[in-house]
């Protein structure tokens, strides 16, 4: 009998109940806090908060900055992922490790590190400041922080997609006279599209949720650096409904992200 059979059959009752209890607990653990948010606000209060400039500014700023971050990540990350998937060069392991570092680095550490680098007293920021250019505490800083923390999500996924792709496609194209760049754009990219989109969406979601690095490196200013997570934190101390409204919006976006990644892309992948 296979393991699957064991669980479905009546023989192993204890195991079945145990599995059921475990799954139930986990579901309750995840669902309860989300329901808790929805129960604390009426639709009227939600709609009223939507017109609050703080909510509105944060929503617009978050979508724009996370959008730009994702775009930059795709433009820079795709070639890097491709090179690391297909080419061996000295130090490739080091590059891979460094790319993964933001995944395990606490965001507050990332924020402080970015400040020490791009702040006006920092390594690079000091240079720019001499020319009157400030990076820290601007919208640019928000984008830098988002790119820093979310770039690994895209590159990991993109690299995995490239690696799964059989080299016969590019070899065939090359043997028929296609040069590397056209091959990449016309043959390879369409084949890994689903994987890249999935990675980009995960990066976008991570950028949208970025809090720690942003508040330390970009500060907290409405309309300029106060993204949705920062607005949620700030509003929780004053206008709880604005805070809940933003949280509900973020939950809806998160659900959409999961839905797109899980269901839309599954169709692509299975082709």
């Amino acid at each position, binding site marked *: 009998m296979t393991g699957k059979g064991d669980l*479905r059959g009546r023989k192993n009752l204890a195991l*079945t109940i145990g599995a059921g*209890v475990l*799954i139930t607990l986990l579901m309750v653990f995840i669902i309860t806090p989300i329901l808790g948010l929805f129960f604390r606000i009426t639709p009227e209060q939600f709609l009223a908060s939507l017109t609050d400039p703080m909510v509105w500014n944060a929503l617009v700023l978050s979508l724009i900055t996370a959008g730009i971050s994702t775009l930059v990540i795709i433009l820079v990350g795709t070639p890097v992922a491709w090179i690391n998937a297909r080419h061996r060069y000295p130090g490739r392991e080091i590059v891979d490790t460094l790319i993964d570092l933001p995944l395990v680095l606490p965001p507050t550490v990332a924020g402080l590190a970015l400040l020490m680098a791009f702040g006006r007293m920092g390594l690079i920021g000091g240079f720019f400041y001499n020319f009157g250019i400030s990076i820290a505490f601007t919208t640019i800083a928000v984008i830098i922080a988002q790119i820093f923390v979310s770039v690994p999500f895209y590159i990991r996924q993109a690299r995995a997609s490239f690696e799964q792709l059989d080299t016969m496609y590019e070899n065939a194209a090359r043997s028929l006279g296609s040069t590397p760049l056209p091959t990449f754009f016309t043959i390879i990219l369409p084949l890994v599209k689903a994987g890249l989109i999935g990675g980009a969406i995960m990066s976008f979601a991570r950028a949208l949720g970025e809090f720690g690095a942003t508040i330390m490196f970009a500060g907290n200013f409405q309309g300029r650096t106060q993204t949705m997570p920062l607005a949620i934190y*700030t509003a929780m101390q004053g206008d*709880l409904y604005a805070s809940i409204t933003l949280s509900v919006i973020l939950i809806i976006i998160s659900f959409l992200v999961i839905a797109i990644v899980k269901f839309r892309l599954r169709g692509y992948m299975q082709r």
Partner: protein
Amino acid sequence: MKFSWITIVTLTLLAAIIGAGCTTEQSQPEKKTDLTVFAAASLTGALTDMAKEYETSHPGVHIVTNFDGSQALRTQIEQGADADLFLSANTKQLYALRDQGLMENRSIGLFAKNKLVVITPASNPGNISTLADLARPGVRLVIGTKDVPVGDYSRQILKKMANDTAYGPSYQTSVLGNVMSEETTVTAVVAKVWIGEADAGIVYESDITPDNRDKFVIITIPETFNVIAEYPAGIVMNSGNKDEAAGFIAYLKSDQGRPILARHGFAVP
């Protein structure tokens, strides 16, 4: 039809949990009394010292501190945080709890006062020497949010200055236009100035201590514009240690507590 037993068990349990609803029951057996004090971030230095001394003179009490912006602490208490005492940096946040019936009315009283100052990094990168300089275009200013007491007081001061002919309404607008970040605690404002990322910040006089004095240039705010920050203390209604909490409030106002507050730059009533 294939029907998994896992599904059945899961659904049954879910139904049972939802049906039963939630009943909360709390019982905390305690040996040594943990007195949980929620205190304004500006009290960090003073309260840490006082707690140390109080624990020495009261061996049965262990003081647990939680420092944050008073508005954040208020939200935490509103949401049921387990606090015995609340020491707020303004009356607004504590009275808001009192008005909801979350504080012991009779326990509430002022125990410290504070004033505001403008600080710049010792290197003074923004070249700021007067209050008027804060309105100069390009100055990088950090203040508190409108909800954190220090931010509330800062805005009160700017409003007072706006009503004065020497500065005028455009002063207030220009200064607020120079704000590069709004922090949720005064300690975060101090930090941004300390590391030199801000040209100036509006903080409490008590934030400047003998230890960090050489890191800042201080610009005093004249009495006519300054506000007196009033710090009230009170016992949280749900506290399980009201006697110990009352003891600590008495200590704050006693001849043992007051000198420590004074040493940390607070005025004691």
